[in-house]
């Protein structure tokens, strides 16, 4: 038996403010994006996944990059950020969150991120992927005008509470939380602890992402973990939850070779921006919007039980037509699920395909994303 999943790095490993909690809870710790992170706790990935879908899962996502982007007023900071992303930032109302991507000049995706217009005029709150922090920050410093200041936030933790019971749990400590709708955020207090709380997540469930001062993270974690409806959930279930929800993982489903149109993220490109442009890679995006991309990210369901992992070749009538970019077992679906890129004439829902798993063709079909119903509070 040989486990192929381990990865190694030469960099010194970082810890989040909740590291001691994970160890005390019996987590299995693994290196992820330079951090020592819990891949699972004692109950295991399937139990944690199911708990999140049925009750509320508690996630440490402090490895992600939080940053302030500040200008003289909203119009100027939004205009500056819009030179790097295709999302509609200018029209955001205070408290609104937008999902968008930093694009290369060729229209590839440098990273995907969340942008919040805070209540403080001229100040945006960004959350970027852990693995891309350094690249994103260098990119912004290189491209943004001097009047706009990037300030990475190094002294705050980020905790996610996800699942149908999340609202009831939060409401007991932070009535403001229950009043938020999906993709909005506010400054508030959790009991006596100052927080920045967003109604957002990476599981397909209703839930919250809570930014808190690092020295208060353990207190917040403990109060949340103490609720009957709440159990800690590691990166393993976070991955299976987001895969079932059809959400992209940077470096796997999207990277500098994939455009947002190919990645089926067209919905995140602002309507005004599709005609006005003014972001890197606009030529490619405009041409793909007009004529269609040559390939597209789709959901894929193997007919059988064998999971098809990342890197699996997708073939049609013996000819290669694409590659799986994320794949595994979906505990809520109860079988294997995957996402990948296929040539555009194979991208229609229901198209039969073969997946080359260990040299054997396994039948599969293009499936609608997400694999499970998203239960966001609109």
């Amino acid at each position, binding site marked *: 038996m040989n486990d192929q*999943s381990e990865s190694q790095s030469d960099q010194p490993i970082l810890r989040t403010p909740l590291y001691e909690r994970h160890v005390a809870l019996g987590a299995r710790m693994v290196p992820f994006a330079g951090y020592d992170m819990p891949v699972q706790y004692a109950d295991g*990935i*399937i139990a944690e996944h199911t708990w999140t879908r049925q009750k509320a899962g508690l996630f440490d996502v402090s490895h992600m990059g939080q940053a302030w982007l500040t200008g003289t007023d909203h119009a100027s900071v939004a205009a500056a950020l819009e030179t790097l992303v295709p999302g509609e930032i200018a029209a955001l109302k205070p408290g609104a969150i937008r999902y968008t991507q930093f694009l290369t000049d060729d229209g590839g995706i440098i990273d995907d991120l969340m942008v919040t217009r805070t209540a403080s005029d001229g100040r945006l709150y960004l959350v970027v992927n852990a693995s891309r922090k350094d690249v994103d920050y260098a990119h912004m410093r290189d491209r943004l005008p001097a009047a706009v200041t990037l300030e990475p936030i190094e002294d705050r933790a980020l905790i996610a509470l996800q699942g149908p019971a999340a609202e009831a749990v939060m409401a007991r400590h932070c009535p403001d939380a229950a009043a938020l709708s999906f993709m909005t955020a506010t400054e508030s207090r959790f009991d006596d602890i100052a927080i920045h709380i967003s109604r957002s997540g990476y599981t397909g469930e209703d839930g919250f992402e809570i930014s808190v001062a690092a020295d208060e993270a353990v207190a917040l974690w403990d109060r949340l973990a103490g609720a009957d409806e709440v159990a800690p959930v590691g990166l393993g279930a976070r*991955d299976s939850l987001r895969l079932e929800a059809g959400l992209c993982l940077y470096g796997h489903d999207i990277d500098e070779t994939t455009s947002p149109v190919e990645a089926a993220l067209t919905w995140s490109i602002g309507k005004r921006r599709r005609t006005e442009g003014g972001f890197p890679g606009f030529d490619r995006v405009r041409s793909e919007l007009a004529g269609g991309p040559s390939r597209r990210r789709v959901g894929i369901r193997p007919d059988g039980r*064998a999971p098809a992992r990342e890197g699996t070749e997708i073939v049609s009538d013996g000819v290669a037509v694409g590659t799986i970019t994320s794949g595994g*077992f979906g505990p809520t679906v109860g079988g294997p699920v995957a996402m990948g890129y296929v040539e555009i004439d194979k991208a229609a829902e229901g198209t039969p395909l073969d997946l080359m798993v*260990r040299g054997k063709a396994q039948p599969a079909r293009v499936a609608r994303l997400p694999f499970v119903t998203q239960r966001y509070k609109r």
Partner: protein
Amino acid sequence: MSVYFTEDHEWVRVEGDVGTVGITDYAQEQLGDVVYVEVPEVGKTVAKGDEAGVVESVKAASEVYAPVSGEIVEVNEGLADAPAKVNESAEADGWFMKLRLTDTSELGGLMDADAYKAFVEAQ
């Protein structure tokens, strides 16, 4: 009846010239929830160290290697519908395959239970 262990975390329980093969309890613990198992075809001949099966957890796929050479004489068909049996009973009901040994001297290169326990503790 004797049980032998490999450094790749397979076990083989030998009765006469037939060995029953599975993965160890330590291995299933390391893998986590097993969601898919592939066993070889009956009648297939495998050499010691050959890939003889596959075990997949939520996160990853791993090979199961033949601990000794032989011909596959029976496989645990029940694992296809109940892969979690590997987690629940790795060293009994969660067995993968039975093979007829072609060279019993190969057993001498494997570990006994005490040696395997020490091997795991040193991991």
